[in-house]
Structure formats: structure tokens, C-alpha cells
């Protein structure tokens, strides 16, 4: 079997694709990962979560490899990094709290946490209390350092396992700072689309092309088609697709 496995945040999840839902089965199957999968004969596995952090994305790639990867199948991983002010939290197993989203292999206890999130999205007071203090433990420079290390780690891991992969940014470019520059210099720019360039992030690229965005900065079907076209060009260069 051929699988396109997509990892990411709300943009990969297709949030608001239908104009209504932050997360729905239709959105998950018909965003840019689904468009690319259909065009090239892949089964889609969409492991994304609205609000998902780069920490979540890194973990979910490792989780897929250690839990679901089958050596006899053919995979193309699309890893779509998100913005920095985010981390992953988790509700206690014994609590009634859940964060329900649609996607493959979802875990309702995993909570995406972003600086400045509306408190009503959280079901546990302990998480809500953290909102006021989140800039203290989500430092953006540290996040840039961590992001570069996660990219490098996955790049080496997937290369060693001979798994086809392609990375892009949806929300913001990867900052180049003193703390991460030695790692950034080792990133494979063939398999990570212009990581430092704002104009090559999904949001900025589609806004430059005058695609209409929703009030929560998401895009409809035409935007996803355009982003899929852009990724497809690079996938062709790598000979991942015909």
C-alpha cells in the first residue's frame, strides 16, 4: 500500500475548509494533504490537530514510526511545521476532560496549548491558570532552538530509515538565531521548502496570491488547491511524484 502521512496543525487538519468547522471528517480528507494523496494514488493518513505545536508534530512523527509504520508499505511523509508559541499538554487519564478533534490516531487527552488561547477551549482549570504565565515557559528563542533540533532529528531519522519526506512551514518561518544556527546550517533544503522565508509559509503565500482567509486565518478549498500545487512542484523535483 502507498500512504501519504501528513503531520501538522489546523492548516493540515483543513480547519474551516467547509466554512463551518474547526475540525471535521470532510476537512481532514479534503485539505492539501488529501488533494495530493488523491492526485497521486496515495491513501491518506492525516495526523494533525488544530492548535498542534511543533512539539506535538515531532512526537506524532515518532509515534507513527514506533506504533504504525509497516516496513512493507510505501510512505510519503508531509511534515508541516507550525508557529512557536505552542506546546503540548495532556489531561489526566482519570479525568473527564477531553480535547476532541477529528483526524487519524487522535488522542483526546492530548491538549494543544498556545499563548493567548481563549480559555473557553480548555476543560481543566489547571490549564486555564497556565495561560497567564505561558510566556515564562514558552520562550520563543528556546522554541526556535527546539524547532531546529526537531527538524534535524527527524531529517536524520527519516533519511536513515529511507522514508520519503517533505517539510514546509504553515504559519511562520524558522528563525535563525545564535542558539540554533549550527543546527540550521545542517538542514536539508531540498526536503524542507525555504524554511527561513516568510513568503513560502502557507498563510503568507496564499495571502500574497489573494486567496480569501477566514477570520481565524484559515483557507477554503481554493487555497488548499494552490498550496497543494506549490508542494507538488517540489515533490516532483524530488521525484517523489510524477
Amino acid at each position: 500500500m502507498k500512504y501519504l502521512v501528513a503531520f501538522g496543525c489546523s492548516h493540515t487538519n483543513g480547519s474551516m475548509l467547509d466554512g463551518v468547522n474547526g475540525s471535521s471528517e470532510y476537512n481532514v480528507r479534503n485539505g492539501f494533504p488529501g488533494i495530493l494523496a488523491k492526485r497521486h494514488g496515495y491513501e491518506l493518513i492525516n495526523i494533525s490537530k488544530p492548535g498542534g505545536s511543533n512539539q506535538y508534530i515531532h512526537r506524532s512523527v515518532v509515534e507513527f514510526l514506533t506504533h504504525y509504520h509497516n516496513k512493507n508499505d510505501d510512505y510519503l511523509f508531509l511534515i508541516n511545521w507550525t508557529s512557536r508559541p505552542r506546546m503540548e499538554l495532556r489531561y489526566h487519564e482519570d479525568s473527564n476532560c477531553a480535547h476532541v478533534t477529528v483526524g487519524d490516531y487522535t488522542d483526546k487527552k492530548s491538549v494543544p496549548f498556545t499563548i493567548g488561547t481563549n480559555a473557553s477551549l480548555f476543560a481543566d482549570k489547571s490549564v486555564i491558570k497556565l495561560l497567564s504565565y505561558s510566556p515564562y515557559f514558552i520562550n520563543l528563542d528556546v522554541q526556535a532552538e527546539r524547532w531546529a533540533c526537531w527538524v534535524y532529528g527527524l531529517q536524520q531519522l527519516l533519511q536513515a530509515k529511507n522514508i520519503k519526506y517533505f517539510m514546509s512551514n504553515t504559519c511562520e518561518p524558522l528563525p535563525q538565531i545564535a542558539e540554533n544556527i549550527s543546527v540550521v546550517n545542517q538542514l536539508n533544503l531540498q526536503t524542507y521548502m525555504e524554511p527561513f522565508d516568510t513568503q513560502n509559509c502557507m498563510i503568507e503565500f496564499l495571502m500574497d496570491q489573494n486567496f480569501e482567509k477566514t477570520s481565524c486565518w484559515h483557507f477554503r478549498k481554493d487555497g488548499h488547491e494552490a498550496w497543494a500545487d506549490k508542494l507538488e512542484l517540489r515533490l516532483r523535483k524530488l521525484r517523489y511524484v510524477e
Partner: protein
Amino acid sequence: MKLVSFGDELVKGKASPYFLAQMLKFDFVDMSSDDTCNQQIFRDVIKFLCEEPRDVFILIGWTSGNRLEINWNNKKFTYRPDVHDYYDNGINVLHDSDNILFNDILVGQHRASEAYVLQEILTSKDIPYYMYNTQDCIHFNEKTYLYLRSLNGKNYHNPLNKESSMKYFTQREESKNPDLDWANFLYDKISYKDGK
């Protein structure tokens, strides 16, 4: 050959990695640091690997999972659930959310993920290495089981058992020289000796 040691304050300076390097007749490079956390150790190892090191044996002492790096009014340190005497009492408000910040399943998943990635990179680069826990273990349950099963146990001393960590081993042995005893223990465990 150089033994390059990563870890926390328990393994810094003339501690067990230093003695292990002597036993192995390797030069010693100390990359450990005070008040670090596992996320920082992961980044330190990645940065070191980006320098394409040669002729190195990498020793990684993972620290407690209950450490979160914070930047409180430009002071960087790790926040811990068992510490209350911070320089600014305001930091203690975070304790209300310790159950969320240090969810043992999620901490275990992240910790195992990063250990797994490093193991795979080190193996692919043909760099000999050994990992151990300095003071606790990775939480084992059905949500962490498959991550843990993927770790190479031959090169990571019993990550699931707190009593197998350096701190508990040396306390149990009631050692007069715990650093030397742990170095001896690691010497017996690691298979990479005399360049083989």
C-alpha cells in the same frame, strides 16, 4: 578517542563520566551542565552531532523528567514541582498546575521520543554511545509502552526502572565513592571498549 558526557549537575566535573573515561583510557569532554533538563540535553547532543564529531563515545545521562525550562524576568532556570524556594515567590503559582505541566504519560512520551531519535541518529552515524538515567525513569504504561519498546535497551540502561538510575543505585549500595562505583557499573555495562 574521546568520551563526551552529557547530563545534569550529578555527572558534572570529577563525577562518574570522568572516572569512566579514565577506565576506558579515553580523553574526557564534559558537556554536562547544572540545572539542565532533558529537552536541553537533547538539544546539546543534536548541536554536538551537527559538528560531525569523529572518534567519540557519547555518554548521555538523562535527568529528571520533572524539570521545565523557564525564563522568569530574564532569569533562566528549570521549574520543578518539588521546589518551592524560588527567588521570586510568584513562581510558586505554577504549582497549581503541576499535574498538567508534569503529566507523567506526556513527559514519558516526549522523553522516549527524543531518546529514540538520538539512538537512531547515533546508530546511523556509527557513533558508539550509552544512555542511562541519573535520577528517575520513564513512566511505563499503555500510552508509553510502544515508544519504550522501540528504544535499544542494549545501549540504554533500564530506562523504566527508577531504582536502576544512577542516584538510586549509589544510594542502595551505600557507597563511599558513588561516582567511582557508578563508573565501574557503566564500564561493565558498555560493550564499546578498546575501540571495538
